[in-house]
């Protein structure tokens, strides 16, 4: 969908989070000089089109004791990756799951699943779950633990004219 100036205003006003008040959409609307109905309609349209992936909480994994994480990577038969990737994505503790291109000969893996747990043993147990789901469709796998955060600025989209 094409976003217009009003959509972009609503995005800018809610990017940092929704107000924690009884009528959050009415508050956003008041800040922008719009009606609550318009704000809600626009949000629903953006959600239906995928511009908004979801309205939800992002918990801090570390504060919940999920201090271990590993990027597990799998070489899965191309014809089965769609079906199996969805199953892997449904496991609790998997926070991202993507099919990505291989980079042969350096990199034979085409399925990436970020695993989270309270310890490295936890993450390894999850890795065993994933391996069981993939079965003989998987020809090889590895896991990459992060040893250092070198940079983390998050996404900054510059504002654009609608």
């Amino acid at each position: 969908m094409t976003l217009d100036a009003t959509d972009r205003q609503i995005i800018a006003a809610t990017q940092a989070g929704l107000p924690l008040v009884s009528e959050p959409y009415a508050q956003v609307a008041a800040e922008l000089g719009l009606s609550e109905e318009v704000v809600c309609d626009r949000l629903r349209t953006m959600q239906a089109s995928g511009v908004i992936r979801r309205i939800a909480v992002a918990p801090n994994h570390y504060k919940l004791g999920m201090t271990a994480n590993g990027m597990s990577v799998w070489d899965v038969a191309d014809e089965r990756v769609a079906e199996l990737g969805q199953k892997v994505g449904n496991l609790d503790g998997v926070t991202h799951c993507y099919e990505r291109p291989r980079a042969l000969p350096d990199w034979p893996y085409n399925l990436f699943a970020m695993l989270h747990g309270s310890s490295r043993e936890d993450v390894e147990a999850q890795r065993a779950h994933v391996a069981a789901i993939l079965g003989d469709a998987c020809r090889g796998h590895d896991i990459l633990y992060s040893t250092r955060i070198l940079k983390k600025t998050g996404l900054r989209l510059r504002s654009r004219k609608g």
Partner: protein
Amino acid sequence: MTPDETDRRILNYLQEGFPIAPHPYRMVAEELGLTEEDLLSRITAMKEARVITRFGPFFDAAAMGGAFCLCAIAVPEERFEEVMTKVNAHPEVAHNYERTHRLNMWFVLATETPDAIARTAEAIERETGLTVLCFPKLQEFFIGFRVAA
């Protein structure tokens, strides 16, 4: 703060989604058997304690016209700091992690246009003399980003 059982129920529930309606907190509170006031004060407390990183709409940057790409470089150990400095100097590099693999530097490029991904990757290759492998997502398996709280 340490989230109690009720806080954890709230976190699990709100990872799934949130209504777009005039009184959304009241609706969620009713589902969870709480008062709206209790729900709001617990979310506020968890946000202040940074148990909640963010609460609100999550926008798809690609749908908004941006582009993302996961990239990796095999950096010789003795050049690690130098290469890191060169890579991180690009504002397009949003995250960068050192990882346990021969490909030991993994970063995400976030740009406003798809062609800026290739341009940035090429610039990093020129500056470092190292190959940048690009792993754009071909397919995303939806997971709702759940972590059992």
